[in-house]
Structures are given as structure tokens and as C-alpha cells.
């Protein structure tokens, strides 16, 4: 294994080589430059960095991931997944490169801009340029910094004041087998103007084999009274490392639902930051993770109540099989001025494998004196009594286990407001569980 000092310089060298080749606007260059400087200042986190203490990055640090230099061919199985969520304004990126052929933005209603940055730089509203990179925390998140240094394209979503979208926006990120030992840096910016309302899905899929490093960053800005549902579905192939960050900025009376579904990748982590900056903001962070084999899956959340009368709800549930390991670590911080807020945080883990391991660390830091906060966590197995009850009705052990597990996970599927996505995640859930074939029609 190489020394950390050399690791830094490798990425800096890549950056410099890349910067020499590419022509780009001053603004973008400044942003990229800033990213690599921020990365150089911190390097990869060691196990002494609290936020990364449980995440074993060794396999990632041992490898040199060169930025992907072009899209690979998309296998037919992955093509099917591209259209799996039905009618939508759809953008598709392959190994980080926009694929116009697979994309289908459809007819864009007034008030909606959704386009890859590469194809729309000139006509991007000024507000988008101001927002791009303004929220992601590159100072403390090394992979957000790397993304900022290296992203070549970005999904730019702008929804104008008062616009309600009928169809969801779906962004599919495909990793092909060509992405082996390549790094991909998907970047997404969503600006929801005052009182706009819409849903957006980021769907991460990939071939089974490649050992790719995928570092997506999404910035979601919800202005006053905006209502945004953001779904992240991560079902990459079992070889990849997925280290992503999602940043939510919620202004006065804005409502943002973040839903993270993770069942893919060998090493997966999604860090979710939510800043409630205006009074009455309402943010929900939901997560469902299904792990198997030797998968590692991690969700870290940082919720910052910076204004009064805010509400946050967090519910993360995990179903762990085999020798897999999962982490939930969440900090709710209530600032001094954030009176009358209501924050809830729950993490529940179901261990189906005897060797599976779940870590749960919900935390509160409260500086205001008139607030309602609660948190809790459980790690447990299926209820023996319930299993026996089902057995005495003729239902086999495997089926009973599947049924009870679906029931456990279903609490996080029912809030999904896009039916096609609900059905899709449900299928993913059933595929993961032993004896759950029958539970398919369960409701």
C-alpha cells in the first residue's frame, strides 16, 4: 500500500493532466480548482477521523482510480433498467458521460429546465451558476471535494416559481464493465424555486464485475414553500465502491423528502446533509438498505436546524444478511435560535444473518431550550413468536421469514409517491429475500 502523501499527488496529477486538456469556462475551472485544493488540504480520511471511523476505505485507497475517459457499451440487462421507472423526463449518463440516445427528456413544460451542463452551459440561468458548488461541503468531505475537482458534466434541474411537474425527473447513472478501475463523478444540481413542486429520482445501476469508484454529489436547493421529493436508488454491481453525498438546503416552509434505497455495491456510503435555514421548513430523510454477502453499507446524516419551527423526520431501516455490515450514524444539531423545532430520528436493523453486523449511532446536539427531539435505534432479529404463529398456519419458515421481512421494510416503501418506483423497489426487495416470492402480492 502506498503512503497517503503519494495518494494525494496521484489525484492532483490526474487533475493537472485533465485541466491541461480540457477547455472550460472560467467559472467551472475555478470550481474544479477549488475542489482539488480542498481535497489536497484534507486527503483521504484515516480511521482517526470520527465520521469515517467505521468505513474501511482500504480497498479504495489501494487502487488508483483514473477518471473515466469515455462511456463503455451498455449491456442489455442494464438497458432494461434504464426505462424501468416508466414515463419521466429522463436523462441517462453512462460512466459519467451523457448519453443522448438513451435519454428521453420528453416535452419540457414551461418553467422546467432539465439538461446536462455540457449541452446547456450558455443558457443556464444565473441562479444555477451561483448555486453550483455553493452547498456541497468540500472542506470536510473528501469525496465531495474529489467530485468537485473532477466532474465533467452535471445534471442541471431548474424548476421555476410556482411550477408543478406532472411527470417525475429520472436521472439514470450507468456503470459499464469498462468502468473497471475508473472513477466516475456524477454531479446533480436541483434548484426548486418558490412554491414549485416535483419529484426527482437518481437511479444508480451497474454491471456486476467492474471495480469502479462512483462518487456522486447532489445539491438540492428548496426555496420558500417549494416541495421536492428526491429519491436515490443505488443498485450498482457487487464490485463497485459508491461514496456519495446529498446536500439539502430548505428555506422557509419548504418541504423536502429524501429517500435513499441502497442494495448495491460492495462498499456503499451515502452522506446526507440537511440544512433547515428558514422557519417552518420540513425535511424527511428516509433510508432502506438491504445487504448481503460481505457488503458494507453506510448512511451518515447531518441535520442542522438553523431556524425555528422546523420539522425533521428520519427513519432508516436495514435488512442484513450473510456477513454484511451496515452503519447508520446521524447527528441532529439544533442551533440556539431554532426554537420550537421537532426532530425525530429512528434507526432499526433486522439481522437475518448470524454473522451480520449493524452499527447504529443516532446523536443529538441541542443548543435551544424549547424543542422536541427524540431518537432511537434497535438491532434485532425476527420475532420467534410471529414466525411460529405463521408456521402453525402452514406457512414455511422461509416464507414466514420473507413475509415478516417485507412487512418490516414496507414501512419505508409505502411513503413512496411514485407508483412505478414503489413497485420497482418492492421487486428489488423481494429479489433480495429468501422465500419471499409469495410475498410479492402481499399488501
Amino acid at each position, binding site marked *: 500500500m502506498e503512503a497517503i502523501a503519494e495518494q494525494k499527488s496521484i489525484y492532483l496529477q490526474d487533475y493537472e493532466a485533465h485541466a491541461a486538456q480540457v477547455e472550460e469556462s472560467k467559472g467551472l475551472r475555478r470550481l474544479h480548482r477549488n475542489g482539488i485544493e480542498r481535497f489536497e488540504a484534507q486527503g483521504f480520511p484515516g480511521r482517526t477521523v470520527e465520521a469515517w471511523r467505521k468505513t474501511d476505505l482500504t480497498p479504495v485507497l489501494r487502487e488508483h482510480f483514473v477518471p473515466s475517459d469515455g462511456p463503455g457499451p451498455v449491456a442489455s440487462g442494464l438497458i432494461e433498467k434504464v426505462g424501468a421507472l416508466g414515463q419521466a423526463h429522463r436523462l441517462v449518463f453512462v460512466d459519467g458521460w451523457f448519453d443522448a440516445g438513451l435519454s428521453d427528456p420528453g416535452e419540457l413544460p414551461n418553467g422546467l429546465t432539465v439538461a446536462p451542463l455540457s449541452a446547456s452551459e450558455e443558457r443556464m440561468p444565473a441562479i444555477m451558476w451561483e448555486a453550483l458548488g455553493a452547498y456541497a461541503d468540500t472542506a470536510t468531505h473528501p469525496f465531495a471535494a474529489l467530485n468537485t475537482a473532477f466532474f465533467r458534466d452535471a445534471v442541471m434541474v431548474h424548476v421555476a416559481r410556482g411550477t408543478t411537474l406532472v411527470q417525475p425527473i429520472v436521472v439514470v447513472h450507468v456503470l459499464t464493465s469498462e468502468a473497471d478501475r475508473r472513477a466516475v463523478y456524477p454531479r446533480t444540481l436541483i434548484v426548486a424555486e418558490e412554491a414549485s413542486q416535483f419529484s426527482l429520482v437518481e437511479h444508480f445501476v451497474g454491471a456486476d464485475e467492474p471495480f469502479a469508484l462512483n462518487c456522486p454529489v447532489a445539491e438540492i436547493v428548496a426555496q420558500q414553500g417549494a416541495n421536492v421529493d428526491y429519491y436515490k436508488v443505488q443498485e450498482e454491481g457487487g464490485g463497485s465502491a459508491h461514496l456519495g453525498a446529498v446536500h439539502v438546503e430548505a428555506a422557509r416552509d419548504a418541504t423536502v423528502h429524501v429517500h435513499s434505497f441502497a442494495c448495491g455495491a460492495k462498499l456503499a456510503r451515502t452522506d446526507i446533509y440537511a440544512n433547515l435555514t428558514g422557519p417552518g421548513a420540513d425535511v424527511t430523510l428516509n433510508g432502506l438498505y438491504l445487504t448481503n454477502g460481505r457488503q458494507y453499507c453506510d448512511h451518515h446524516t447531518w441535520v442542522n436546524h438553523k431556524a425555528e419551527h422546523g420539522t425533521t423526520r428520519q427513519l432508516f431501516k436495514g435488512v442484513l444478511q450473510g456477513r454484511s455490515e451496515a452503519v447508520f450514524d446521524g447527528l441532529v444539531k439544533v442551533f440556539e435560535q431554532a426554537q420550537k423545532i421537532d426532530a425525530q430520528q429512528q434507526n432499526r436493523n433486522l439481522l437475518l444473518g448470524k454473522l451480520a453486523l449493524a452499527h447504529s449511532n443516532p446523536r443529538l446536539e441541542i443548543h435551544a431550550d424549547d424543542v422536541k427531539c427524540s431518537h432511537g435505534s434497535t438491532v434485532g432479529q425476527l420475532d*420467534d413468536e410471529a414466525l411460529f*404463529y405463521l408456521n402453525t398456519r402452514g*406457512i414455511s419458515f422461509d*416464507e414466514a421469514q420473507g*413475509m415478516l421481512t417485507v*412487512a418490516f421494510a*414496507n414501512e419505508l416503501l409505502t411513503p413512496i409517491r411514485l407508483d412505478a418506483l414503489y413497485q420497482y423497489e418492492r421487486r428489488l426487495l423481494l429479489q433480495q429475500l429468501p422465500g419471499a416470492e409469495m410475498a410479492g*402480492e402481499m*399488501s
Partner: protein
Amino acid sequence: MALLEIRNLHAQIQGVEILKGIDLAIERGETHAIMGPNGSGKSTLAKVLAGDPSYEVTGGEVYFQDRNLLELAPEDRAREGVFLGFQYPVEIPGVSNTYFLKAALNAIRKYRGEQELDAMEFLQLIKERAKSVKLDEALLRRPVNDGFSGGEKKRNEIFQLAVLEPYLAILDETDSGLDIDALRTVADGVNSLRSEERGFLVITHYQRLLNYIIPDKVHVLLHGRIVKSGGKELAEELEESGYALFEEAAA
């Protein structure tokens, strides 16, 4: 061959012997009642017959329609036609009553080589059976026993019995926690399901239930053994004398 034949059954939980040699035979069409004070082993007997893995059978034999019951997994006992009505039915949030019953019924039918019911046939069946045991149809769509009242839970057990049509139904203190009206409804449900093909083993603490479900035979269980068997009049006798009389006899 009897429907159920229990010979010298011994069982323990966590090293403590609860059943200390039970002998009992039930013929098709018969209803037997087992009465006994708390801690006598009534519920243990019910659970051991259904295959609860927390109990260990340490001796004896149980035959059900010629099959060695103790060799079968709990789900296979159910598929062979043994049903246990629970004293405390388990709540299963997230699984609807309808779905649960459909999975159960089709598992049983499949095991018996019968055609699985399609959605329409199944719906028709459960609506009809819900009506026959006076179960509110709204409860069919609710999660299994979740938020049900005590009476609704017990009625739901009888409803499941009506749908699954077992050959032997073991009812473990189905009367506990029921007011007189609920008790009557449950008893009516049971009585409507009595037939020449089916046997019942009704376990109860009180004689009250047996005013409504008239048994063919009554057994008194004490300290893990059946200390006396008789006709339905034995239940009345017990109501007057209490279990103390048998305590002396057993000592």
C-alpha cells in the same frame, strides 16, 4: 385409529419438566375439553402438539391420523390438518389478514395436492367464512391482529379455523378475556364448525365456555398429568368443588 393419540407424552422447557406423561385419545367428530388451574401444563400441551420449538419433547408419542406428529415441522403439522387457536394471537404489523390467510390456505392445499385458489375464489371464500363467524369484513384488510381488540383477535382465530378447515382444532383458552357476548359469538362459531370429520381439543380454565361448547369428554390436567377424565358433568363438578379436590388426589 383415533384422530389423535397421545401416549405418555413428556415435555420440558428450559430444563423444567412441564408435561409428565400425558395419555389422551380423540376420535373424529369428538370434542374434548381439558381443564386445569394455571401452571398445570394446558398451554404447554397445546404448543407441543403444534410444534413450538421452545419446548423439548423428552418422551412419549403422538399420532395424528396415523402420522407420527412429533417428527413433523410445525408447518407440516398444519398442512396435515392440525390447527392451534392461540391464547394470545400474535400481532403482525405490515401483513394483511387477507394476504396471510391466502398464503396459509394455498400452502395447505398445495401440500395436499389440491389446486390453489385464484384471487376471486379465495375472496369469495373468506367473505363467506367471515360472515359465518361474524367477523367484521373491514378486519380482513387490516394487518393480522394489529390493533384488534381482545374479542376481535379471538374471533379472528376462529375465522382462520373456518377458512383452513383442519381435522383437529386445538383451542387454547379461547375464552380468556372475553365478555359474555363475545364468548357466545366465538362458541357459536366453533359449534358451527363441529362435524363428523373434525375433532376439537378445547383448553380452558373455566367451566363457563363449556356451557356453550358442550364437550363429549372432559379431562382434568394437574401438574402435567391428566388426573381425571369423565363426561361433561365433570366440568360442572369442578366448578363447584374447584381444583383443590384433585390437588389432594394428585398429591
